[in-house]
């Protein structure tokens, strides 16, 4: 058994999840591939969204995959970092916006 929870080479084996449930695995990958095709949003925009989400959910496989994907598409490191700040802003904002709840509670309880 490996000594760490994550192994970068496991990313290459992602497709193997279908081995234990062919039907659902295939449906998932078909859906996944459809999602990233050009639509109302470009493939480039979707790649940046994926990179930001990857950091939000802190998935090391996804970070590896969408950093590489971005480089292949000619996305610059400045664009990548800006996308991450969007993720950071929403995460930070999500904590801070609950401050209103805290303030409501304090205002209710304090004399």
């Amino acid at each position, binding site marked *: 058994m490996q000594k760490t929870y994550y192994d970068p080479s496991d990313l290459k084996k992602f497709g193997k999840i279908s081995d234990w449930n062919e039907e659902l695995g295939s449906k998932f990958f078909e859906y996944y591939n459809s999602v990233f095709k050009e639509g109302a949003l470009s*493939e480039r925009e979707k790649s940046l969204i994926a990179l930001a989400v990857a950091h939000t959910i802190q998935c090391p496989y996804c970070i590896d995959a969408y950093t590489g994907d971005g480089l292949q598409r*000619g996305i*610059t490191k400045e664009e990548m970092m800006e996308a991450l700040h969007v993720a950071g802003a929403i995460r930070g904002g999500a904590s801070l916006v609950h401050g209103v709840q805290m303030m409501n509670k304090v205002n209710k309880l304090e004399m």
Partner: protein
Amino acid sequence: MTQKSLHKRHSELANSKRQLEILSNGIFQNGDLPTFKNKIAETNQFPLKAKKLEILQINVGYMCNQVCEHCHVDAGPDRKEIMTRETMQQCLDVIEKTGAHTLDLTGGAPEMNPDFRWFVEEASKVGIKDFIVRSNLTIIRANKKYYDLPEFFKKHNVHVVSSMPHWTRGKTDKQRGDGVFDKSIKALQDLNAIGYGMPNSNLKLDLVYNPSGAFLPGNQAALEKDFKKALLDDFGIQFHNLFAITNLPISRFLDYLIASENYEDYMYALVEAYNPAAVTNVMCTNTLSVSWDGYLYDCDFNQMLELPVNSKAKHISEYKEQLLEGRNIVISQHCYGCTAGAGSSCQGSVA
């Protein structure tokens, strides 16, 4: 930034035999990855055979004004290999009798060969359909004696193909050297000013994109769209087509892959992206590469690895179509670079 060629630095990777050993050892020797030969055999594509010659690519010398990090030629100002006028004449004799529709001059910076202009003038008289010069752009701004190159190209109806790794200064200069981006932009503006690359212009100007690191090129059409928009919006520059070319794991790019500990991952990425459809149209099947000293190779990469054609005709002076057509192409693991994804050739994607 690299300042000297691997040859000048006496690097072990200046030795083509050492490069071929690396490409055959390790992950390919222990069976983690299939050799290129075994991979193409799976789809009955071994041996790869040369078809009718369509493109004659001539490397007129390894001297260059730049020392790009990824250069598969290991070109630079310190390289002295230069094609002589005598060898050029032998090439002209072949160009006259061959049915190839494209003549493709490359280097180094081909313009640095002292007989470059004579060769272009003579070759343009032969009436070849597509006459390409691979210009690195900065040479046009490197010295006053080159400032008139755009006019010279126009006069001889040369199709200019130029390298441009990105539409931003940072990524371009990191790969090709400080100041390369600004000089390239100025050169492209000069070319546009006399009609090169303009919509519907017969003066063809194409750009070559190759990744600035250990990753594969993305979709050629999507990259072309991004390049066109950025270069037009930021600098008013226009061009015709973008060729997305994969970096092959040889010479300075191999040196970079090993030094940055990316070699194995890069080879895995190439093998995973292997596309049998790209094998069908791989450029070595319709191209012949001529070295500065007149020897014949299946492609410019094999030239740098010193893997000569598998034919009785080894030199341009011995050129005979019947001896070369149908020859078995010489392959090694670097060939995965031309068969990954949409495939890669000096003319961009092939699949």
